[in-house]
């Protein structure tokens, strides 16, 4: 399992996390250590709560009025759900890329600059834009049309723009919610390559239902499944990706990764 004793290598920790929507418990009792500068993948069948769990890491669930959370998310020794923690700042530190590319209806430049600006960025904006676009491997494609609308790009480009936008506010952790599900295979490949590059500076948590993607591009994998009795998601197994895909400890895991259900 993960090297949980070495706290410097842990970027964020989930401790006994349960998330409720109204009376319904979407995920229950998750315990998980996310390793620094590694890619951690959440896999599992539809409806098992992997996206819900992901959103718990930067308090995006707060935006859903009926949601409620038990347990702790520990980041730098601080529970993110403590009363004195500001969700706005949490989201700056723990950025997010969404399933469907969602650039702002502004220029490509503004898409990058906006987040930086509202977060009080003081450096040279042009440099930041270029640097972010480069680190999202899209600079060469857009450098001549920075003033065009972000919506004019193709789906894969849009998604990389969104990643660039996230990178620009210098988060420590990037959450990716099925970032490739709306993209074609070539664009998907590009995003996967990008993730490998970003890994050097960022900790990445990715939700995917594409097992090959998890196997190819993640260091650790958590398999979540739905409890048949109360329909809540729970974590079946969490281990290094190579270990999980070669030697699953749990029979459900084995059945899932060999494609017998899901």
């Amino acid at each position, binding site marked *: 399992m993960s090297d949980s004793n070495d706290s410097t290598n842990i970027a964020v920790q989930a401790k006994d996390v349960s998330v409720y929507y109204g009376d319904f418990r979407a995920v229950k009792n998750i315990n998980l250590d996310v390793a620094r500068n590694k890619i951690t993948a959440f896999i599992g069948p539809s409806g098992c709560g992997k996206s819900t769990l992901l959103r718990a890491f*930067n308090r*995006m669930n707060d*935006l859903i*009025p009926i949601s409620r959370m038990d347990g702790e998310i520990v980041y730098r020794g601080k529970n993110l759900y403590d009363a004195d923690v500001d969700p*706005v*700042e*949490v*989201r*700056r*530190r723990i*950025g*997010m*890329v*969404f399933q*469907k590319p*969602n*650039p*702002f*209806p*502004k220029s490509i430049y503004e898409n990058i600059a*906006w*987040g930086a600006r*509202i*977060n009080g960025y003081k450096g040279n904006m042009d440099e930041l834009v270029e640097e972010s676009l480069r680190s999202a491997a899209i600079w060469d494609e857009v450098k001549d049309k920075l003033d065009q609308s972000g*919506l004019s790009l193709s789906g894969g480009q849009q998604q990389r723009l*969104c990643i660039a*936008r*996230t990178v620009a*506010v210098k988060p420590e952790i990037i959450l990716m919610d099925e970032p490739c599900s709306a993209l074609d295979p070539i664009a998907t490949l590009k995003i996967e390559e990008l993730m490998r590059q970003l890994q050097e500076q960022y900790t990445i948590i990715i939700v995917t239902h594409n097992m090959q993607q998890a196997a190819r591009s993640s260091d650790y994998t958590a398999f979540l499944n739905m409890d048949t009795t109360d329909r809540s998601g729970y974590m079946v197994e969490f281990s290094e990706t190579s270990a999980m895909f070669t030697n699953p400890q749990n029979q459900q895991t084995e059945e899932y990764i060999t494609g017998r259900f899901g």
Partner: protein
Amino acid sequence: MINSPVHDIDLTEDVALSLRKKTKWHETLIQGALVACGILSVFTTIGIVVILLNESISFFTREVFEITNKSIATDIGPADTTFETTASGSTLVVGQIVRVDDELMEVLAVDGLSLTVERGIQGTEVSFHTADEEIEKSVRVPFREVFTGSRWQPRLQQFGMWPLILSTLMISVISMIVALPLGLASAIYLSEYASNRTRSIVKPILEVLAGIPTVVYGYFALTFMTPFLERAFFGDNIQVFNTLSAGIVVGVLIIPLVSSMSEDALHAVPQSLRNASYGLGATKLETALRVVLPAALSGVTAAFVVAISRAIGETMVVAVAAGAGPRNFEWSQVFTNYGETPLNPLQSAETMTGHIVRISGGDLSYNSIDYNSIFAIGLVLFLITLTLNIISRRIVERFREVYD
């Protein structure tokens, strides 16, 4: 589809015949009637345009007779075509139509004080006229004056529409100052902040506000807003009828319109944009004002344009509270003494709609100059509001394409 067992009817013979296309009179008739219903709406528009144009044309081509202060010097019989006039008054020129009593004449030649005329033109009766009868000369409503003049008194041959237009604009501006910020701000609150519960309470209240007849708002302006402004701010400086009070109340009346149209536009912005914004660490306010609002800008703009059109066409509030009688002025006053022009919101001034209501509410005889003139005003009003509505719909149409 599984058919029920075939009845033992011999179909073979009639099938070909029965499948042949038949004219179903019944159906055609009904369809015709339905088409007629649809076309009626087109005729309504055509009707509006035709009658407004028609009466406006009569307004602009109408001959109005102006007193010349000149009268005939001697008695003239039915056969006389040349006669002397008094020296006083304005000069007459060849080709001018003049009126003496009920008879119309065309001036053929002018020689000093003596006029040579063609008698009884335009089918008027040639009659005997005694000395000292007044000569009136015909003038056309000057097209230029209508759109540049600053005095509107058709019966006194003053045809400048600006006093009416200016006060209409004045009231529209005041109402927009009230309605746009309040309407937009409440739309933002409803769309971005309010819980479903709040929305379910507040939206019906706004609907109620929108459903209150405008004459009730007029009553409100006159019996509440004006006394309130008088007591709270202006004292004796504000007149009983004034454009400020009317403008504020028109603004209030438009708030629900602005608010509901803007809210629709804000609501149509996809949730994913908001998520993206929050994901970058934006606050609710930053998301609402700098992501959602710009994304909904065209819809909000369309709401604003419709609101302006509504304010310009609003009638009863101004008819009750803004005052009766156009506030005529001189252009020079606009810069030197604007207090005496319609630009002073504390004084009474009549708007285009208010004028139409007052004139048509009185004893109005068809073919009078007043009757024609209100149609000319109506035409201007119609064109302004139509243009605004078309602009608004264009904006909305463009806006829809973005997210589809």
